[in-house]
């Protein structure tokens, strides 16, 4: 009887969240999955296509180009957001004077609108009027000058750089909070045993923040899979698809080309990549941990 009462009590608290989650997450995803099986321009009647959109995706060179671009973004995010964020947080945890100042400085870009950051960088990169090429000139590095957004070798990296830079601070703050929770006794005993900073980091700190590290990796990967704003503002994903990512391509397909069904299929692939990565990553981590 008591259990039943408890179940009702707890259920009552959970129910609103379940309703909201179902309405705003499960239902739209289910609708997208449904749309992905249709040919639909968003206005006229849908035509059931079965898996036709997915078959078309497999043969679509543009789609695979944006998948490769997104893969690069994920790799750079893991190295420069999670990796650099962790390193900076570890160093920052040792700072005694000015700790709060540095923490704030690293976090400030995170709270700026991605659109503002994108606009700022598009001006920065402008090879005719922007400061970047002028800076290279003044440093005697004129041979490094490029048409940053019109050069096939630089445009993707130029678009990735601001979004990677912007969110480093987020990981710094998360890792910093985790590192500060590492018991001082452990660090003290490591020091007494003669462990240097590297050994302390890998053998004492990392095992203690392992769960947080996993969360950050998942955040970086899923965040990259959803990447949209910076590329949209700086290049609109162009020229062609040179700086486009899956989420941006999905938007252009669904809402500019009026191919809602095909765009929905792209949405489902983003969901599938995110889910697949999370499951595999958690399994690998669990195996590593064991």
């Amino acid at each position, binding site marked *: 009887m008591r259990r039943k009462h408890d179940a009702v*009590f707890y259920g009552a608290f959970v*129910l609103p969240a379940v309703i909201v989650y179902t309405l705003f997450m499960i239902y739209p995803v289910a609708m997208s999955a449904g749309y992905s099986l249709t040919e639909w321009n968003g*206005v*006229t009647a849908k035509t059931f296509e079965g898996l036709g959109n997915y078959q078309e995706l497999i043969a679509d060179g543009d789609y695979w180009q944006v998948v490769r671009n997104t893969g690069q973004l994920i790799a750079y995010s893991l190295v420069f957001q999670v990796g650099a964020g962790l390193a900076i947080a570890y160093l920052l945890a040792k700072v005694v004077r000015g700790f709060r100042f540095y923490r704030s400085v690293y976090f400030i870009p995170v709270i700026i609108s991605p659109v503002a950051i994108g606009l700022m960088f598009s001006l920065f990169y402008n090879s005719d009027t922007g400061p970047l090429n002028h800076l290279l000139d003044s440093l005697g590095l004129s041979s490094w000058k490029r048409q940053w957004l019109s050069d096939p070798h630089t445009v993707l990296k130029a678009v990735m750089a601001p979004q990677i830079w912007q969110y480093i601070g987020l990981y710094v703050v998360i890792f910093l909070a985790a590192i500060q929770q590492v018991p001082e006794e452990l660090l003290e005993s490591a020091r007494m045993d003669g462990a240097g900073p590297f050994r302390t980091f890998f053998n004492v700190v990392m095992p203690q923040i392992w769960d947080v590290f996993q969360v950050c990796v998942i955040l970086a990967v899923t965040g990259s899979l959803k990447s949209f704003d910076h590329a949209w503002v700086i290049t*609109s994903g*162009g020229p*062609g698809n040179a700086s486009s990512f899956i989420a941006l391509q999905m938007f252009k397909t669904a809402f*500019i080309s*009026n191919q809602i069904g095909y765009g929905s299929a792209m949405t489902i692939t983003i969901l599938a990549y995110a889910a697949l990565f999370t499951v595999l990553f958690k399994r690998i981590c669990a195996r590593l941990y064991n």
Partner: protein
Amino acid sequence: MTWLSAKMKKSASIVLAATLVAGLAAGCSNSNNDKGSNASPSTDASPSASSSPNNGGDKITIRFAYNWTGADPKASYFEGKLKEYEAKHPEIAFKFEATPGEEHRTKIKVDTTAGNLPDIFTYWLGPVNLKPLVDANEILDMDEYLSKSGTVKKEQYTDIAWSFFDIGGKKYGLPLEAFKGFFMANRELFQKYNLEYPKTYADLINVAKVFNDNGIVPFSMGSKNGQPSHLFFSYLTYQFQNGFDDAQQIPQTYQYDTDAVRQAAQAVTQMKEDGIFPSDTVANGDWGPQLSLYNEEKAAMVYEFPWMIGNVKPEIVDKSDLINFPALDGSVVDPSSYTIGAVAMGLLINRKSFEDPAKQQALVDFADFINSDEVLGEVAKGGLFPAKQMELDPSTLSPLYAKAMEFTKTQNVWPHHESYVPDSNAYSVILSSLDELFAGFVSPEDYVSKTQKALDKAK
């Protein structure tokens, strides 16, 4: 005690759940009754943001979506008139949904997909934009509106203006904003370097060399999502044999791969190699950055359109002459004989809203107001070329507006390719491929092949 505690928990949980669910339901209910308030992703328009009356009592609600807002020079004139109209009609609860620039197109598409189309809205022309709305029976045949209107008559617009909204013989939009392109040159920069305005491509190369040697971009042209390059590309195409005729045939032939398009693509590549454009056409793409180079006197020439007139600095207007673009090698049409122009925007009415007896008269009156000489004349101060045939008071217009009107008045006005390409996916491929062409990512052959494939797919 245990029993009491359990009972209290049960009661508390029921009350809590009921409250939260009721709140959620109330939230949903409100949004249904007041569809326009939360449904739109766009910025709620400034005119009504503070003064919109509540949607209570017998008031009817009219949702009007438009894009003459934000940094658009027409915004202050247009939104000022909207405010006046709103104040004069307290019996109507207006919801003005303003979304700047191209984002307005996305807003309307999203609203359409969500079954939440505004009652009345401005929109672009041509089958690529209108056909999906017509196929879904979402928008009104304008003859129905004209039969109810007290002031707006079919004869007030040219047949060409109506033709941009013609789908299957019916007209689905009221022509609102027309446009004509014009080339400007900075007279002082040309004088400073003892240069004449170029008349041939050879002249253009010589001019470009001098300007480039002095750190000035000869001709400001960018391409980001095909803006504004697609208009310039159409202009170039029409210099070549059958360029304009071929474009007009696209709705029937779906043939974009023509000799004229190939020659124009070749010309773009050549101009890029000859240093005529900015080195980074993506960074200088879109309307603002392209004009910015010219406004800052970092570019000597620019291709502009009426909607940018209000953004040209007055001191730059004084230094500018309107010129003809030089004839390209192999061209057969005199480039001074035509300009790119069409109707840029029209006013569309939601068919279901119009068929609502409670809303019909209010919609007719509001559409009449938008198309009145009073409103169009006022908005012309911000650079609007009215599609309606009407007299404008020259004393109220900006000097550049007057210059552009005068310069282009004898030229043939030829619509750009967007007016003829019948499929939105194909046109978006053309736009993104233009970015590649101007950036030098693709060869002229690849550009033509890629765009033609998109049209073949749309057949």
